[in-house]
């Protein structure tokens, strides 16, 4: 009975196994990125970037039909352009990163919509908007896994400057020139993981598997390393449970995954060890020192 519900679908159907593999790859790479987005107060930046990617993907779709490589390439180009341009503007002028990003992602969105309407094709972008992790073929899965691997490798390279830049950017600027490249590389990773996520979850929810686990992790640890581990585990569990839920109830897979994560988030807000509501209401007697 329990086997049928929890393991059966994956043993029986190949598309479920592929979906599970994809969701694990997405969790391994996306969750650490999400933790840094959150700690750098850029959670909504991820969301904005997701919008920036959409036109690129749409153009790729127009040029070559439902070819995920073309859509991915288009999304990467649009995303990189917006991320790097806004990063450069923020670094070289007094403009804050959020303001400069807002300008560029809106411009990208407007440009994309313009291109699509000039072409005048009535296309089914619902797939791009909400994704379909259950329809993943081998090629797409390999792309997802490749992107996840690249993300982890790059993150390992830029980890130290990225952490220092997040805490004390001025210090890093005085001892090293690694801050700028690390910052831009990080923005690039954000884009890669959003594109990665939209094949499975769609543009609108891709950022969910990055940000929600990060938010949850914040409620359980004060240590960066532990936080990242928790976020990865939470993302994986949400992905797995979401797939099971989707298989058993016909809820679309993308929303199912995000809804499971949302439930975990609510539990964490209530009962989290670090700053959870219940913990704050009943903190126990004060300590001696």
């Amino acid at each position: 009975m329990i086997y049928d519900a929890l393991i059966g679908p994956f043993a029986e159907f190949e598309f479920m196994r592929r979906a599970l593999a994809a969701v694990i790859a997405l969790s391994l790479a996306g969750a650490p990125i999400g933790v840094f987005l959150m700690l750098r107060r850029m959670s909504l930046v991820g969301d904005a970037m997701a919008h920036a990617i959409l036109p690129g993907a749409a153009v790729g779709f127009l040029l070559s039909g439902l070819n995920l490589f073309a859509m991915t390439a288009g999304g990467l180009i649009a995303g990189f352009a917006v991320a790097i341009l806004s990063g450069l503007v923020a670094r070289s002028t007094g403009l804050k990163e959020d303001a400069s990003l807002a300008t560029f992602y809106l411009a990208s969105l407007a440009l994309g919509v313009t291109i699509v309407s000039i072409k005048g094709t009535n296309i089914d972008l619902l797939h791009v908007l909400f994704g379909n992790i259950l329809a993943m073929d081998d090629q797409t899965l390999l792309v997802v896994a490749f992107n996840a691997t690249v993300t982890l490798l790059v993150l390992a390279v830029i980890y130290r400057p990225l952490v220092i830049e997040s805490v004390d950017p001025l210090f890093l600027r005085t001892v090293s020139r690694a801050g700028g490249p690390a910052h831009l590389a990080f923005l690039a990773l954000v884009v890669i993981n959003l594109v990665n996520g939209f094949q499975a979850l769609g543009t609108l929810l891709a950022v969910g598997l990055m940000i929600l686990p990060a938010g949850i992790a914040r409620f359980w640890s004060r240590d960066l390393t532990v936080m990242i581990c928790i976020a990865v585990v939470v993302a994986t569990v949400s992905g797995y449970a979401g797939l099971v839920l989707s298989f058993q109830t016909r809820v679309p897979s993308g929303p199912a995954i995000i809804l499971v994560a949302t439930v975990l988030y609510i539990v964490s807000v209530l009962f989290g060890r670090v700053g959870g509501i219940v913990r704050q209401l009943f903190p126990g007697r004060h300590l001696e020192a």
Partner: protein
Amino acid sequence: MAAVHFHNVTLGYDRHPAVHHLNGEVAPGALVAVIGPNGAGKSTLLRGIVGILRPLDGSIHLGGLDSRDIAYLPQSAEIDRSFPISVFDFVGTGLWRDAGLFGGIGKAAREKILRAIASVGLNGFENRPIGTLSGGQMQRVLFARVLLQDARLIVLDEPFNAIDSKTTTDLLALVKHWHGEGRTVLAALHDMEMVRNHFTETLVLARGPVAWGPTGEVLTPENLLVAMRMCEAFDDSATACAADDTRSRAA
């Protein structure tokens, strides 16, 4: 050779000068206090020295020092104290010069970090997140990091602001220790008593230099009065400064 050589330096923001036509040099091993009212350009000058602000005019020569030979302690407002990093790791970033991007933190390095934390009197705080520290403790942490940077030029921007006398005494001892080791130290300060008693050389700044020399000769009521009278506001309609105007117009 001078540790820092100012050649007709003008530093500022948006073409408005905050430090105006500064000439002079800091000898290696000097212990220099930079004093002046708020808005006199003290922080701006220090930013120029460590290279995060490019001069509008003139140049600053560091006598062969590169950025890794400089330790800079800014006013601490720019640090994200909510970031989950421990005192140990934060102080450890001071080893950047040796460790860089990938260098491991081995046993010797860990010992060094622990010694630095101990020498600012924070034993037992190694695993505390920096967000839980008081203002004075955070300042001690920053000093520990400067200590690890092992720099030949140390630049401190108002290091004793809002710090109690016990902490100030401890940290001042560290500054004098650095001076004893032959490092060049520049500090922006407000406490005239401290400057008089502990710093050998003083630069009185009021956008332009008012006086610069041995503390005893420079720290006079007249000089301080001139500095106090400095006009703080930028003049939006100011015209371009004539190149040979070597006096601060504001003074």
